[in-house]
């Protein structure tokens, strides 16, 4: 399958230089840090770095680089850095501390993460992630993050899907919030000390590339509409994921792809865009006007039992369905992991039950997550203590009491493993453009285990990027004399102005949201949990038609020179259209089932997902070649020296 497929894409050269330091895997990170050139502490204040996004990755990176003495210009679209969507992460953060003496180690966290990612991530990156994981907990505790404690005063842990040790640290069901507040407070401390210039309500709309290097951004002041150009020695994107391409997702409403997509159009390869994680424990859709889906932490699966009525079409009250007429399908099919199978397995199993007519609730798109046994065993008080806020949230949204009747859950789009391609230094294919956290593609492979996104965001921000970007800054400073009059700057500014004017000029008859909803339903239908060639080909056609209709008929109200939320949304949806097509092309090329993705053409005789390692053990990194032109596929081969690649089985 080396070449193009029906003209959807062209084959390109393989990506070979990942800057992997090589040598024993246990020593690679030390080796890389030792070989990196350093910037003298006195010179650091002369180096400026732009960071887009203030979530766990961006906030922690800015705080750390500011503390180290660099000058930072930080931008976020929210009104405060504390509101980045990392704040919504609930369940926990993994770390190889082995506080439980249950056999955990760096090696085991490394193994679980590579296996959980279905052997589609890089060994070197994942090993490093496991190595620094323990230091993240130390850092957070030092900042005052109130992790759960045992009565002896030591840290408590719990287990998460896909693993058999208890390595997840948590702060009730609000771990992301507490970790983010730690990073945000450290960031504000740097604001006060003058190393960080924080610009809230600013959105990046273009990357400035000068002589092949990322040197700045064009942003829009979302209050005044003013376009501003900021130049720097290097640019870091920490702008999160693109799950909102599906319209309905667990992401915050403002989460978008624009920063990474604009960079992609300027030369940064986009890797594995079709890798989107579908989370099994979300509150099901209730109506047409729903604007988002709410996640219920996966930690609930520690104590909740998942079941459906054994017979299709059984609409009785769950309390009236006796044990014998219930199917605890995860426990039955996957006895070793039971309700704690990885997210992709749990999601697909739920969909299969619902497709077979055994779903519960409105429209039959739901399965039960039942705490009756746990409450009987542990008492209501214990359950309340562990999951109280989640139960309250569920009750608020559904108007049902989960203590007395089982929760209803259904899979939803949650996290995107794809993102801009980066090397071992977290640098993209555009020199000087670094990408961290969910915005890059690395570490999680084709699937993300629970409690690992917070780990990656903070690993990148606190430890990895600060360990690699110095090497770039030491050797590639912004040349003297480059300012806002440089042709590349003028070109980037003109592009932003032109695009904004174009959006405002259409004055059509359909709202931005109506286009977004339609795009989302196409993606969910054809590029969601299950994909196949026929559906994906159809989706590409539909997306192209819809994109044309968008540019001909969208209604964007108001003007640029004001706080204009309609314009903000229109720009983001325009980018989602372009990304959506690439997601489908990427899904089309990957004719295997892996991670969260089930290609119906690729299954085992038992109907389980079938990976095809000989053909697809690679990262698919896409090069932009122009509007309407087929993208070029560059493959980065994934070799596994330290972990034996095997069929994933959770039975």
């Amino acid at each position: 399958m080396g070449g193009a497929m029906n003209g959807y894409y062209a084959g390109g050269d393989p990506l070979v230089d990942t800057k992997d330091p090589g040598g024993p895997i246990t020593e690679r990170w030390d080796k890389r840090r030792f070989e990196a050139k350093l910037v003298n502490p006195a010179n650091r204040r002369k180096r400026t770095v732009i960071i887009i996004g203030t979530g766990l990755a961006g906030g922690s990176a800015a705080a750390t680089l500011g503390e180290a003495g660099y000058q930072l210009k930080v931008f976020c679209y929210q009104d405060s850095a504390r509101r980045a969507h990392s704040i919504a992460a609930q369940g926990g953060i993994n770390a190889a501390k082995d506080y439980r003496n249950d056999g955990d180690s760096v090696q085991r966290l490394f193994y679980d993460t590579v296996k959980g990612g279905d052997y589609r991530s890089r060994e070197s990156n994942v090993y490093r992630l496991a190595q620094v994981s323990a230091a993240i907990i130390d850092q957070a505790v030092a900042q005052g993050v109130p992790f759960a404690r045992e009565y002896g005063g030591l840290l408590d842990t719990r287990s998460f899907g896909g693993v058999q040790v208890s390595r997840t640290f948590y702060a009730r069901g609000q771990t992301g919030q507490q970790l983010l507040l730690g990073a945000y407070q450290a960031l504000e401390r740097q604001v006060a000390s003058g190393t960080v210039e924080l610009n809230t309500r600013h959105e990046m709309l273009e990357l400035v590339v000068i002589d092949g290097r990322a040197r700045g951004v064009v942003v829009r002041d979302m209050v005044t509409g003013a376009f501003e150009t900021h130049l720097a020695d290097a640019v870091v994107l920490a702008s999160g994921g693109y799950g909102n391409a599906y319209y309905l997702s667990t992401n915050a409403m403002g989460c978008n792809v624009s920063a990474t997509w604009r960079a992609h159009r300027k030369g940064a390869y986009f890797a594995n865009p079709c890798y989107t994680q579908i989370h099994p424990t979300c509150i099901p859709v209730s109506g047409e006007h729903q604007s988002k889906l709410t996640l219920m932490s996966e930690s609930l699966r520690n104590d909740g039992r998942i079941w459906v009525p054994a017979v299709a079409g059984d609409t009785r009250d769950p309390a009236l369905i006796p044990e014998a007429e219930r199917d605890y399908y995860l426990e039955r099919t996957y006895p070793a992991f039971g309700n704690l199978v990885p997210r992709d397995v749990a999601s697909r199993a739920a969909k299969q039950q619902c497709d077979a007519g055994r779903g519960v609730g409105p429209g039959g798109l739901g399965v039960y997550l039942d705490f009756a046994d746990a409450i009987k065993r542990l008492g209501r008080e214990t359950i309340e203590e562990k999951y109280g806020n989640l139960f309250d949230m569920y009750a608020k949204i559904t108007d049902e009491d989960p203590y007395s009747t089982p929760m209803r859950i259904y899979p939803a789009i949650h996290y995107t493993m794809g993102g801009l391609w980066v090397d071992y230094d977290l640098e993209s294919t555009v020199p000087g453009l670094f990408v961290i956290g969910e915005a890059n593609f690395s570490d999680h492979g084709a699937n993300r285990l629970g409690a690992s996104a917070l780990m990656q965001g903070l690993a990148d921000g606190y430890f990895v990027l600060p360990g690699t970007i110095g090497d770039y800054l030491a050797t590639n400073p912004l040349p003297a004399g480059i300012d806002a009059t440089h042709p590349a700057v003028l070109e980037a500014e003109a592009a932003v102005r032109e695009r904004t004017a174009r959006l405002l000029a259409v004055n059509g008859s359909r709202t931005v949201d109506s286009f977004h909803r339609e795009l989302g339903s196409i993606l969910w239908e054809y590029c969601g949990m299950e994909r196949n060639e026929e559906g994906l080909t159809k989706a590409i056609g539909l997306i192209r038609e819809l994109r044309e209709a968008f540019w001909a008929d969208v209604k964007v109200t108001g003007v640029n020179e004001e706080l204009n939320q309609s314009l903000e949304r229109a720009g983001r949806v325009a980018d989602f259209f372009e990304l959506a097509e690439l997601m489908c092309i990427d899904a089309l090329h990957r004719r295997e089932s892996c991670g969260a993705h089930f290609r119906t053409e690729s299954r085992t005789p038992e109907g389980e997902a079938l990976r095809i390692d000989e053909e697809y053990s690679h990262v698919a990194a896409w090069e932009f070649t122009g509007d309407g032109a087929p993208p070029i596929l560059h493959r980065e081969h994934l070799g596994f020296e330290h972990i034996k690649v095997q069929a994933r089985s959770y039975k």
Partner: protein
Amino acid sequence: MKITLRIWRQPDRDAAGSMATYEVAGISPDMSFLEMLDVLNEELALAGGDPVAFDHDCREGICGMCSLVINGLAHGPEALTTACQLYLRHFTDGQVIDVEPWRATPFPVLKDLVVDRGALDRIVAAGGYISAPTGAAPEAHSVPVPRKDAERAFDAAACIGCGACVAACPNGSASLFLGAKITHLGALPQGQPERDARALAMVEQHDAEGFGGCSQIGECTAVCPAGIPLDMISQLNHDVLTALPRGKDQRG
């Protein structure tokens, strides 16, 4: 359901604002309050009008971005609930609902229902942190934290920084916000070295931003979506009084 909305419209920071009336019909009790505004905004856009600007993001009650005063109550009539988690089932068919922005001098209106809450960030920047440079952290288990203290810290750390406490306070005080951060960091052993300096610096910034003083009215805790209790203001006062004679010179 059909709802009549009277909404504060204000084109920008410097313009005069006024209430405008809109009717939204054909909505369901299972929709959230913000989803009703989405519907209104789509209708306004199609009719060539200017949609209502309002802040919102996660719609899960955790990011703290939504900020509506609904029928005179910050975040509306339900206890422990942000505006984004408020559902129309809590209203009645045909009801008239007033929707206004947070009102406080340090929170200027930027447009319609959107206000600038940057003052809260500046209070945090003044001292709402524990100085812990990356890489300098001791092993996490080297400092045991009694569970009771960790729980107390968490209860306080649950503040989402939305500013409802300010909007509800007749004095325009941010004392509950302050008290939550002071209590969070002060309850932990890690927070002790800077405890005095933190309290004094944060209060000083609070006052400089133009927030009012606390007179223990309690409106703040009544509307707080995160359930931050009033005694955290007592903790704040205690910490400030203890710190005053010692001064803030222990933080260079």
